């Protein structure tokens, strides 16, 4: 029963966080001791950073994919908190729901026992840690050196609406220009939108072409490997003639 308690606690926490989104982001509480927006921000920020570190530290590629899913979902929460609701939903739909499902698919197709865990050498780890730490230090120094970014936010948000985004996509800007904008005129995004859609089409065709099933006379190296590894028993032979024999994952 103990093993059950921990995950249910986690899901309860997620439920609490989800229910906590009841607090509209813009509404500042007059009598509040705790700024709920900040509290939720720190929750989601901790989740995003923690799972991102999990991706780096973990050696198991399937767990890496899972941590990446959680990290990106927490980032979507951060998008919602900053008032970019459409971007947040887009992140959930395309990034988490589309791209990462694809990625997990790829992980499973290639998740043969020797490749699930490829450990980097200790020297590589040290190098990565040093380089990462110095890069983080550089980025933080740069970010903290600008005074305008260090001030706490004003805490006022207009009602977020997806309409200006959609109108900008078809080339008409209806949003109010941001305060203190250096230039008055702003461009629509019709041309980038069209370019991206054509680009996506090209990628769709290209990816389908690259990953298509080819008929070949000689067995593929992966099939040769499978037949070399598998013991000569009827079930193994049957599995070998199927799509792949060593798809069964899991590590202990």
């Amino acid at each position, binding site marked *: 029963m103990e093993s059950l308690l921990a995950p249910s606690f986690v899901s309860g926490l997620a439920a609490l966080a989800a229910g906590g989104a009841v607090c509209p*982001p813009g509404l500042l509480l007059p009598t*509040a001791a705790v*700024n709920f927006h900040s509290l939720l921000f*720190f929750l989601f920020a901790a989740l*995003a*950073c923690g799972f*991102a*570190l999990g*991706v*780096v530290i973990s050696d198991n*590629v399937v767990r*890496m994919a899972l941590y990446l899913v959680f990290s990106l979902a927490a*980032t979507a929460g951060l*998008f919602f908190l*900053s*008032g*970019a609701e459409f*971007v947040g939903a*887009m*992140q959930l739909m395309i*990034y988490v729901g589309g*791209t*990462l499902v694809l*990625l997990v698919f*790829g992980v499973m197709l*290639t998740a043969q026992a*020797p*490749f699930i865990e490829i450990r980097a050498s200790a020297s590589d780890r040290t190098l*990565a*840690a040093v380089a*990462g730490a*110095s*890069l983080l230090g550089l*980025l*933080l*120094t740069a*970010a*903290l050196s600008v005074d305008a*970014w*260090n*001030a706490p*936010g*004003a805490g*006022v*948000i*207009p009602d977020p609406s997806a309409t200006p*985004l959609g109108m900008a*996509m078809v080339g008409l*800007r209806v*949003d109010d220009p941001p*305060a203190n904008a*250096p230039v008055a005129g702003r461009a629509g995004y019709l041309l980038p939108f069209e370019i*991206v859609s054509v*680009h996506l089409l090209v*990628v769709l065709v*290209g*990816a389908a072409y*690259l990953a298509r099933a080819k008929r070949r006379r000689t067995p*593929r*190296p992966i099939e040769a490997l499978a037949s070399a590894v598998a013991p000569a028993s009827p079930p193994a032979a049957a599995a070998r003639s199927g799509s792949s024999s060593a798809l069964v994952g899991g590590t202990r």
Partner: protein
Amino acid sequence: MNGLPCTAAILPLLAANPLTEPVGVIHYLVVGAVLFTAGIACMMLKRNALGVLMGIELVLNGANLNFVAFASPYLQAEGGMSLGLDGQMIALFVILLAAAEAAVALAITLNFYNNHATVDVDRADDLKG
């Protein structure tokens, strides 16, 4: 490593109770920096091609977070300048292009796997002289 200006800037942030203050751009920038660094470290460290791909996703995500933070009027200080809608637009395009990039990279990885029976990028050295 962070030098003097950094510690001087970070002190007032630590002095205030973070839970009662509204968050600002800098909070998002810090999270974005952590995601970015994690992605770079992932790309350096992983030998699995898909692990490298995950690192790229993290890097793009960290950058996206910065765009959205700069675009959000909520996070700006009084009289601060926000990117407005343009930041959100760029974030949207980054998400779309990341999807395209992931599809192509995955197709390449699967092809590599089919031809070499491995996904270890260190073993993609056929052209080595």
